[in-house]
């Protein structure tokens, strides 16, 4: 469990983290999302001590980071694997020796039979058994990230930190990498912290998420709570929700649905029950992990406003009148 409390960090004159607090539970996949420059990567680097912080505290399983000396910090880093946007593999080493690199730092001989067994096991996990002796330049972006994942797992970490790990990959490859990350979480029980600016990453794998904006956590919770009906303008701006083409007349009402209240019966039911007409102006469906969430904008006459809203309240459907 990682507990971050009121962490502040300043680079020269620039305050990057302005009192960040959040908690990552054991065995979950936790997302930290936000615009670039929001301080996400800096926060992630604070968790494994690549970056120090000025104020506040980060606690990893009862270990307080600010109290650690260099040696204990290294021991903590051993428990945390990390992958990066740029993969960061050594160009001159083949796949096998890239994966083995962290072993060298901890006095494990990469040629020992034990090490070889581990590395073969990991290349199997990431699906690169046949590339053991390829150099990074012979691999595609997705394959390089798979090598980096295997390398991050070679010391049997309890945590995997992902810094924009899929930002340099195309959507199809991203899906594969995310599926692999999910598999690692499920099968090995590794707690995963993902820093990203990509909504699809959060939607596909994150169980909980923090939205970081301008050095502070704006919201923390389940992705569907944060993003299906975003309350904060900053989150809506981030999602770039398109509502500029809505009618200028009448009342525009946005309805929010999740997997439990399917949208079709409700909308047609409302038309029948209230004996009224309305137009559907905009709609979207989104997958959050295994559930479907959606939202729909309808346009009704001003005179029907109260009746429609009452009906929606009765049916316990989330709504919002758009300005």
């Amino acid at each position: 469990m990682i507990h971050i409390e009121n962490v502040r960090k300043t680079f020269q004159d620039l305050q990057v983290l302005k009192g960040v607090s959040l908690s990552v539970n054991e065995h979950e996949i936790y997302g930290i999302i936000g615009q670039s420059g929001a301080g996400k990567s800096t926060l992630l680097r604070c968790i494994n001590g690549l970056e120090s912080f000025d104020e506040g505290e980060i606690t990893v399983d009862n270990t307080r980071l600010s109290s650690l000396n260099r040696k204990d910090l290294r021991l903590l880093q051993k428990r945390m694997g990390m992958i990066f946007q740029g993969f960061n593999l050594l160009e001159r080493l083949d796949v096998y020796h890239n994966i083995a690199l962290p072993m060298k730092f901890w006095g494990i001989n990469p040629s020992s039979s034990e090490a070889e067994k581990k590395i073969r096991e990991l290349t199997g996990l990431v699906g690169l058994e046949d590339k053991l002796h390829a150099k990074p330049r012979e691999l595609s972006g997705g394959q390089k990230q798979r090598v980096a994942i295997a390398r991050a797992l070679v010391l049997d970490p309890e945590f995997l930190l992902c810094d924009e790990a899929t930002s340099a990959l195309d959507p199809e490859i991203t899906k594969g990498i995310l599926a692999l990350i999910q598999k690692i979480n499920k099968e090995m029980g590794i707690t995963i912290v993902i820093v990203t600016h990509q909504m699809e990453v959060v939607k596909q794998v994150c169980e909980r998420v923090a939205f970081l904006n301008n050095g502070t956590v704006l919201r923390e919770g389940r992705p569907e709570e944060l993003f299906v009906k975003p309350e904060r303008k900053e989150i809506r701006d981030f999602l770039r929700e398109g509502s500029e083409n809505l009618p200028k007349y009448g009342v525009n009402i946005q309805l929010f649905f999740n997997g439990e209240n399917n949208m079709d019966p409700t909308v047609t039911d409302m038309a029948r029950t209230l004996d009224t007409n309305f137009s559907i102006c905009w709609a979207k469906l989104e997958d959050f992990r295994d559930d479907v969430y959606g939202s729909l904008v309808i346009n009704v006459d001003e005179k029907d406003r109260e009746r429609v809203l009452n009906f929606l309240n009765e049916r316990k459907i989330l709504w919002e009148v758009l300005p």
Partner: protein
Amino acid sequence: MIAYSSGMTDILMTALKQTVYMVFWSTLFSVIIGFIPGVILTLTAPDGLKPNKAVYETLSFIVNVFRSFPFIILLVILIPFTRMIVGKAIGTTASIVPLTISAIPFIARIFETSLRETNPGVIEAARSFGASDIQILFHVYVKESIPRMLNGVVLLIISLIGYSAMAGTVGGGGIGDIAIRFGYQQYKTDYLVVCSVLLIIFVQLIQMIGNHLYKKLS
């Protein structure tokens, strides 16, 4: 005519051996010694593992000072020092000292540039796995930079071949010395031509081996 040619062959063979001898040892010594300031510059640079402006700027200044000395002047200035090290200031072995001294700042700068070209992301990755600074230095910086450092050594060897010609001033001998004394000062054009051709072949050979190794290592 035959006697004359064999005389030339003998002279050139001896000179060639002297050149190889001077260049080999001064390269070896300067690479070993120059590695240290090269590493210190890399580590203390603003983007290094232990940024230290005072150390970096001072060392950088010293390197620049030594690099701006014309070799022929350095040769003379270093005479007392050379005498201290090898016991004499004249001869092929003695000329290794000034050659080495002039090569150290050169190779230090080249090693610094090579090492600092290492992808900072890779260094960060190593740090994230708990690597110590010394482990990062050898397992990441040096490991990744070997082909670039090798290129630098080729450059060094080639410029040392050039410098060794001036070693004739202190009785160092070598191909370049023959070219100056026989070819230039005694107007023996054939010596000048043969010496030049030998030097061209020598430099080409070194460059070819260097390129081959670079390809193999990277």
